């Protein structure tokens, strides 16, 4: 039962990863006892399952995901949101009102209008039906402040880090509040514009260098160096 690549090595679609006894995980497929890569990415051997962590990807909704969406249409009984996926997502008006909702009485555009950004959760999605969203949880709802950064959706796990090491470091070092959308959109809101911009630069760096080793340390250093630089610049003024 040989494997043909080392852990974390770069593979292309069609590369033979292993033979016999292995299961194909994410972004891999199996044909006649052989496991092949289906993506440009890094191999990840997990016991007998082989995954490929994609370097470039698009977002496919998954039930339970937290996503950040933009209202693109206000309908009679709900809103249509762009969640950075090939499918348009629906948010129903009955989900927002805690009382029975009447289209004649309630003006939906006064709640969410076109262009509004919303943090929501995917409640249902299947191959045949477009994703349905909900905001009936405390942390969900309309975004009133902060900035949005776009990253490759497959790199969100890297941005979280092992047991949340990367994200907690980013929050601690920059003092910003960070909300990760599984669809590759990240909301950053901090006390000052400088804090937010620093966090955004750090997130962009993680996105660009997700496949390199020793990344958390490098990002910490970068933030501390830039923070130090800003403070001394302020003193000069």
């Amino acid at each position, binding site marked *: 039962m040989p494997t043909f690549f080392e852990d974390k090595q770069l593979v292309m*679609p069609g590369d033979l990863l292993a033979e016999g006894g292995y299961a194909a995980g994410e972004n891999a497929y199996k044909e006649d006892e052989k496991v092949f890569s289906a*993506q440009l990415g890094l191999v990840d051997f997990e016991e007998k399952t082989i995954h490929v962590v994609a370097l470039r990807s698009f977002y*496919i909704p998954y039930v339970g995901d937290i996503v950040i969406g933009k209202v693109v249409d206000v309908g009679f009984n709900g809103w249509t949101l762009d969640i950075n996926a090939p*499918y348009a997502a629906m948010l129903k008006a009955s989900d927002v009102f805690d009382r029975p909702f009447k289209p004649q009485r309630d003006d939906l555009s006064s709640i969410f209008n076109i262009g509004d950004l919303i943090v929501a959760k995917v409640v249902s999605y299947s*191959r045949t039906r477009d994703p349905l969203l909900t905001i009936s949880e405390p942390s969900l709802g309309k975004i009133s402040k902060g900035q949005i950064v776009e990253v490759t959706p497959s790199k969100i796990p890297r941005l979280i880090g092992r047991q949340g090491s990367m994200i907690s470091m980013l929050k601690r070092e920059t003092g910003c509040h960070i909300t990760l959308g599984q669809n590759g959109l990240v909301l950053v809101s901090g006390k000052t514009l400088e804090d937010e911009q620093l966090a955004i630069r750090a997130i962009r760096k993680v996105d660009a*260098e997700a*496949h390199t080793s020793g990344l958390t340390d*490098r990002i910490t250093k970068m933030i501390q160096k830039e923070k130090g630089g800003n403070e001394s610049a302020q003193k000069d003024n």
Partner: protein
Amino acid sequence: MPRKTTKKLIDKKGVRVDGRKPNELRSIMIKAGVIENADGSAYIEQGRNKILVGVYGPREVHPRHLTQLDRALLRCRYHMAPFSVDERKSPAPSRREQELSKVITWAIEPSVFTDRFPRTSLDVFIEVLEANGGTRCAAITAASVALADAGIPMRDLVAACAAGKVGGQLVLDLMDVEDKMGDADLPVALLPSLNVITLLQMDGELSADEFEKALNLAINGCQQIHMIQREALKTRHIAVKQAVEE
């Protein structure tokens, strides 16, 4: 007035018009990720061919009625720039371009897991900036790199290359004059890791024996091109890795 080529397509030493050996490819350069606005892109130079490919999607299908409920719709548009050939080519899609668009779609589709993202479309735009024979193969090669660059799940890359018969001899990777003046042309597209042929066309005459030899020659060419495709995808990400890990 048609010019008469006095020069032979292959000289006594077995050297071709552009100085290549019979089983030699033209020099190939592929670059991935050249268009910022596209989801994936690639640029290929194969001899004097210059082709740019942009991939958009998966995204919603327009017009709506073309939606396929069980898989994604793969659409390719092969287009030649007006300045791509000696005599200005009308920019309107010609009959030949429509045919090539279809043929390229069929050559690429078996490699893509279209059933993983149903009700969407994947649009591949192929723009031939300069043409010098064998553009359909170069277009398939580049389109496959662009799809991989877009992060589309695929069974394999698709490498394409032509073989043929020129001046009574079997040759690899025909260029424009060899295609026009030669005896036969055999474009082949291959899934190199799975060893599956996804495109096989022939124009001209070959004996059964010659056909088999030419096919093997073309497959060999595809395998060489596959290595160049891999290099192109690798360089894009390795450069970042090396720069920061030093």
